[in-house]
């Protein structure tokens, strides 16, 4: 491993100063970053360990009804917080559908948001990859790319963002709180990740030294608790990234959809909010036809980036199913196989 400096700042301000230097990177639980370092994909000069910063591991209900989740809250701790799971069931389900129990125990909220793509060519340092090395080319483009993006991709990069957690968050209008050299600011999660365009190496809008301190769910997000699901199709029942996933949340009033939220995972370089689909659902009854129409809208701009045309049809079907499940109502308990098409299979004992 490349030798690096390890610093453990005592305050957020110290952390920002330490991380603003070129070659410095924040270290949270390291479940993604350390793998990348061992594989020589990331070669930071300095790790700024934020796990000892005070006050970033709280889940707080704010006066305006919103919920503030500290960046260091563990993925498992958040999902298993009973009150959280009740208010934001699709988020809890998405968290529990990610990685493995051991990884979820370690992984943090901030790290999950900023985890890197799983594109195999990004990980393989002998391959050309514009994201890893700007301007070097993209070996995924004509390579083994059946799991790559179908939305928002460019000729320079066809990678997807792998997070499950981000998908329901973006559907629920989550806001990211950032501390940086210029002080505190906040942006919509939908604006955190960038589409590749000609600069796939710039994955987020964060500037050097920017520290995510919290993620906030606005008060309105609770309004979907009765009809919210996450659905994830993957190549084994657990411990695999999504081929395609979807978060669907509905507010149903008098048999009509008062408001719909829909986002897709595994399809683009960011969690993909499908606003056009949400629009067609507003004010209509939750019927199969309406969901089909929404699915078509959601994938209207999709195009294959390689051997992955099937993902477009799969995504449509997932949208329909996720909406159908959401309309049927949030189950009283998160299924034993969270977000799985087999969630309702009896006898399921593992996740």
């Amino acid at each position, binding site marked *: *491993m490349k030798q690096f400096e390890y610093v453990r700042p005592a305050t957020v301000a110290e952390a920002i100063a330490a991380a603003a230097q070129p070659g410095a990177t924040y270290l949270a639980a390291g479940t993604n970053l350390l793998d990348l370092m061992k594989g020589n994909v990331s070669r930071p000069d300095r790790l700024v360990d934020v796990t000892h910063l005070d006050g970033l591991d709280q889940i707080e209900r704010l006066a305006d009804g919103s919920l503030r989740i500290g960046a260091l809250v563990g993925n498992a701790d958040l999902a298993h917080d009973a009150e959280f799971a009740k208010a934001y069931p699709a988020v809890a389900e998405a968290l529990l559908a990610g990685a493995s129990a051991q990884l979820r125990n370690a992984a943090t909220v901030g790290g999950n948001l900023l985890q890197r793509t799983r594109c195999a060519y990004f990980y393989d340092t002998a391959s050309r990859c514009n994201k890893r090395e700007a301007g070097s080319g993209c070996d995924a483009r004509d390579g*083994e790319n059946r799991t790559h993006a179908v939305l928002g991709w460019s000729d320079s990069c066809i990678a997807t963002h792998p997070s499950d957690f981000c998908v329901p968050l973006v559907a629920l209008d989550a806001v990211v709180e950032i501390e940086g050299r210029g002080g505190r600011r906040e942006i919509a999660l939908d604006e955190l990740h960038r589409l590749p365009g000609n600069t796939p190496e710039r994955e987020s809008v964060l500037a050097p030294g920017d520290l995510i301190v919290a993620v906030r769910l606005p008060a309105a997000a609770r309004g979907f608790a009765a009809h919210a699901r996450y659905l994830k199709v993957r190549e084994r029942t657990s411990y695999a990234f999504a081929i395609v996933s979807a978060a669907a949340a509905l507010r149903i009033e008098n048999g009509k959809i008062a408001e719909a939220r829909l986002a897709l995972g595994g399809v683009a370089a960011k969690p993909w909010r499908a606003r056009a689909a949400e629009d067609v659902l507003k004010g209509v009854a939750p019927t199969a036809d309406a969901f089909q129409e929404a699915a078509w809208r959601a994938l209207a701009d999709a195009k294959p980036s390689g051997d992955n045309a099937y993902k477009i049809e*799969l995504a449509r079907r997932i949208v329909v199913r996720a909406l159908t499940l959401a309309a049927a109502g949030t189950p009283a308990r998160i299924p034993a196989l969270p977000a799985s098409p*087999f969630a*309702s299979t009896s006898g399921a004992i593992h996740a």
Partner: protein
Amino acid sequence: MPELNLTSAPAHLRHGSSIGQPLTRRDGVLKVKGQATYAADNHPPGMLFAVIAASSIAHGRVTSLDVAAAKRHPGVVEVMTPDHKPQLAIDPEIKTNPFVFRMEVLQSNEVRYANQPIAVVIAETLEAATEGAVLLAPRYETLPALVGLDAGKSYVPPVVGVGNPTENHLGDVDAGLAAADKKIDAIYETPAQYHNAMEPHAIVAHWDGDRLQIDMPTQGLMLSLARVAELFGIAHDKIHIRSPFLGGGFGSKGLMAGPPALGIMAAKLVGRPVKLVLRREQMYGPVGHRAPTRQRLRIGADVEGRLTALDHHARTVSSTFDDFYEPAADASHTLYAAPAIRTSHDAVRVNTGTPLFMRAPGEATGSIALESAIDEMAWTCGMDPLAFRLKNYAEVEPITGKPFSSKALRACYDQGAARFGWAKRSLQPRQMRDDAGLLVGWGMGTATFPALMFQAQARAVIRRDGSGAMEIGAHDMGQGAWTALAQIAADELGLDIERVEFKAGSSDLPDAGIAGGSAHTATAGAAIHSAGAAVIAKLADLATGDERSPLFGAGNTGVIARDGRLIRRDDESRGESYTEILARAGVAEVEARGTGAPNPAAMEEYAMHAHGAVFAEVKVDPELGQIRVTRMVGAFAAGRIVNPHLVKSQLFGGMIWGLSFALHEEAITDRRSGRIMNANLGEYHIPVNADVPPLDVITVEEHDPHVNALGIKGVGEIGITGSAGAVANAVWHATGVRVRRFPIRIEELLTQR
């Protein structure tokens, strides 16, 4: 390494009948406490760490390595390259026997496959060695890589597997097909797979003058020792290999590969002990894998569903520099009674590490194609798949015409089908749904694996204190040899298992052959049996020849060893203890050696195979195509079951591997570079707990007087065969979509809704 202190057997054991008892692993407590010493747990004083720099190209030449940069890195002690390395006694390209494979030990700058070792960095710490390997920043002259089953001109290899003929014939296949009422002609593809033992290949090598101490996991202590001896030009008795535990091997630790040899070379170069452990991705190259195959099956049947012909052709790959051919088509030799059978193979050369034996080599790949094809044929004939298999049940081995030494396959079919509830299956596919609307499908497959025997020796001792010892250089890969072989030893010595000192896993013990071919318990067990019988005979001589003994005059055949005593066969009230016999004779102990080996006469006369029947239920989401196995029942007949608990574990493992074969496992090779793109356990999918349904294993009673003295057939590999096909067939039955490329992918099931 501390002396092994194995946990004792449960007290309720009936003395003198350890065999057949479901003992838990005697090394289990050591393992859960982390006290079982695996190779990489050894740290001799002064040890350095070696890390391999592996090629990122699949074909070409290394043109430069920045050795100076690596050496400048703090902690780096040496860099071993083709220009700077200890000389070997023989050219590693020479095949001195068929069990020797060509290995890459820095003999040249040539690169023949991705992940080939191209240098070794030796340092004070693992981290320094790792970074040193990066700093070498190799440059290459890259040549086009040969990738895939159509990479080049095909050829017919001289043999497949271990010396099997490339082609086999019975009757006239073309006439059989021409005469058939119903036919299928289908092509199946299986991917490259990697063993992925949990424990990576590792070695700690320590030269002490001209003596060499090695800690390394191996499935073949003596094969490895012989290879080390010839590579380094040293006498066998100067080498000691310890391999008490393996964290799995599955064939990849059967033969000495390049990396451990590099560890020994590194230790020689620096004159200090060296540890070399492969990184996970480095296991995708120099230590073997299961080759991909493309198999064409043509099958004909008459109006009654009786096979008229079976033609099985398999295309596979080998490396550009050595030969191992996955004998996939051989799976069609034994199971179904067609009057005309042809099996054949061809191959292309690709830029890959040489393929090798991987759990059920040939049988697994061939089985999933054959069992799928048989299922397709049953459907074509409008027959239930089990009825079709019974209709074509082989009463004698089809090609050779030999009778089976034993074959309880009918009982396997019966008991498995009954337990599964097979009779309720709908003939038509896509008929069954569960309450949630998921498609439900049932499939089956027949399992088979040859009952093999190799050569082994053992040494048995009976001591004056009434204890015994059994020494054999056997291998515990996790399958439970420490337990099962000790059970056999206890019975053969007529002692309680706690009174037997069982020694294994070290090259200074008698040669136990290899742990492979599902033959280790049978072979090592036979050696233990004969050594035990020999030492008891010596003890009996002492007693029956001595007037003072109550056994005087009983003759060798007239005594039984039980509970640490010899007793007269015709009068069990007369006997005496081992202690009394040895004390009176004034000797501290008696010892004897024994051998286990195949019986050529029996092999000439009989076909010897284990059999089984596997039934699987899958559920498939009708719109989304995701698949989950929800139930599996396997009924296996494999001769005598030495330890039902361990045997079930082996069969469970095999069945899970079969599920994995059908649904998960695949090395994804970049079609241009020949690099494997998922060389890690996150992306190379094997089943996780949530993928594995409740498994039900039935061991069907089978008495085989011919295979070996103990009637053991072996259970290590058979579980994969049959299982993979059963799952694939269940997917078809659930969906009506026949997928012939494995693993079955979601997109292939999206076509219908």
